């Protein structure tokens, strides 16, 4: 019995690492997504080219290889990262590349009449973007951002390969110490699923909050 309590603690510690990775990775992904997504819409060719190169590269290569590269190859250039830093960087940059396309698509989905209203009201390019286009585009992005965050959550399990003690890593520890596969892996399956549901629920709530009044329903 006491042994199982220890194992549960291990799994919970793993859950904390997974949640941390997901949160920090998502923040990085979000920042990078806005920079690269808006970069793709820049007036300047160099900015567009740079953003496109980043997006295509990270979408076109495996997240597994990216993570290994960040963790094992970067040190050869003198940049040594902790497993957590490497995990956040790898996951954030990878998912950020997908989310950048979401940002771009959402911004482009806002009708040209909104841009024209900005011009007619003499708003600067950035003022219009910041106060008119992005707030509307953000609502369009949200559901897909939710999917991206869930993808990121699921991808966190690969950090166990660089010896970061996340949920998957801990399940393997429990398995090797107890010889039982079913219990630890069923447990983390349920935890992953619960976390994904939490993300879905959070995004829905945010969506509902931000779209209040937009559909003609009294605020």
């Amino acid at each position: 019995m006491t042994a199982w309590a220890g194992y549960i603690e291990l799994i919970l510690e793993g859950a904390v690492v997974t949640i941390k990775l997901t949160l920090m990775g998502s923040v990085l992904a979000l920042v990078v997504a806005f920079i690269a997504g808006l970069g793709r819409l820049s007036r300047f060719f160099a900015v567009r080219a740079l953003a496109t190169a980043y997006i295509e590269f990270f979408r076109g290569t495996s997240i597994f290889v990216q993570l290994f590269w960040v963790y094992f190859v970067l040190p050869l250039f003198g940049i040594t990262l902790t497993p957590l830093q490497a995990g956040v960087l790898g996951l954030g940059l990878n998912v950020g590349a997908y989310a950048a396309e979401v940002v771009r698509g959402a911004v482009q989905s806002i009708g040209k009449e909104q841009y024209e209203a900005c011009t007619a009201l003499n708003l600067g390019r950035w003022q219009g973007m910041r106060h008119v286009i992005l707030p509307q585009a953000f609502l369009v992005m949200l559901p897909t951002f939710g999917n991206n965050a869930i993808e990121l959550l699921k991808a966190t399990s690969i950090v166990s390969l660089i010896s970061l003690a996340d949920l998957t890593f801990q399940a393997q520890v429990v398995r090797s110490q107890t010889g039982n596969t079913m219990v630890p892996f069923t447990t983390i399956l349920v935890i992953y699923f619960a976390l994904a549901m939490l993300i879905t629920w959070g995004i829905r709530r945010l969506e509902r909050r931000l779209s209040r009044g937009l559909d003609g329903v009294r605020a």
Partner: protein
Amino acid sequence: MPAPIIKIDAISKSFGAFKVLDGLSMQVMPGEKLALIGPSGSGKTTILRILMTLERIDAGHIQIEGEQLYHMERNGQLLPADERHLTKMRQKIGMVFQLFNLFPHKSVLDNVTLAPMLTKGTPRAAAEKRAFELLDMVGMADKAKNMPAQLSGGQKQRVAIARALALSPKIMLFDEVTSALDPELVNEVLNVMRRLAAETDMTMLLVTHEMGFAHDFADRVLFFDGGKIVEEGKPDEIFSHPKQERTQSFLKKIIAAGHRV
């Protein structure tokens, strides 16, 4: 005689291979109320959009209050205008769109205060005070806290008018501002515009298919066809005694289609 506030000089504009405007020239005097009428596709909207800098010209010049709109004078030379110059020139001009183009995520009040706060640095309190005055004038003060989606088309358009007025432009452009409205909502918007015309000395250019309103509102009516001014004159001349055959047939068609003259 005062100088024209708008001076359009031989402008041309093509969309692809299609030349909408071909060497158009016209002038508008300060305070003048102008109605632009003509068949669909004759270039009326294009002229307003060019004045609002939503569409660039291919050739020609436009002066607003004696200052080039699309060009900058540097050492006696005319260079293409940069964004900074355009920003300065746009301060003189406001536009109201057929489909209102309100910001759906902002309340009525915020729609009106946004641009003055951002572009003129007006403090919120002052911007809101002015917004309430304008919303009051268009009969929308009691809806200041509503979102655009909660308003009827006529109400939206009145808010859009207040929003454009909040920047105190000298020139206002109205592009078929009632044509997207249900018939019973048209008058509430036209009444606002009548008041505007009577109570302000703003220069106003109006594109419309409401011939009755054009007659009452305008000091001068321009009939366009194929990107050219076919005939112009006082409303009575144009509507009661059109000289050109094309003007006559256009007005006849409009009446047949049920529009009031």
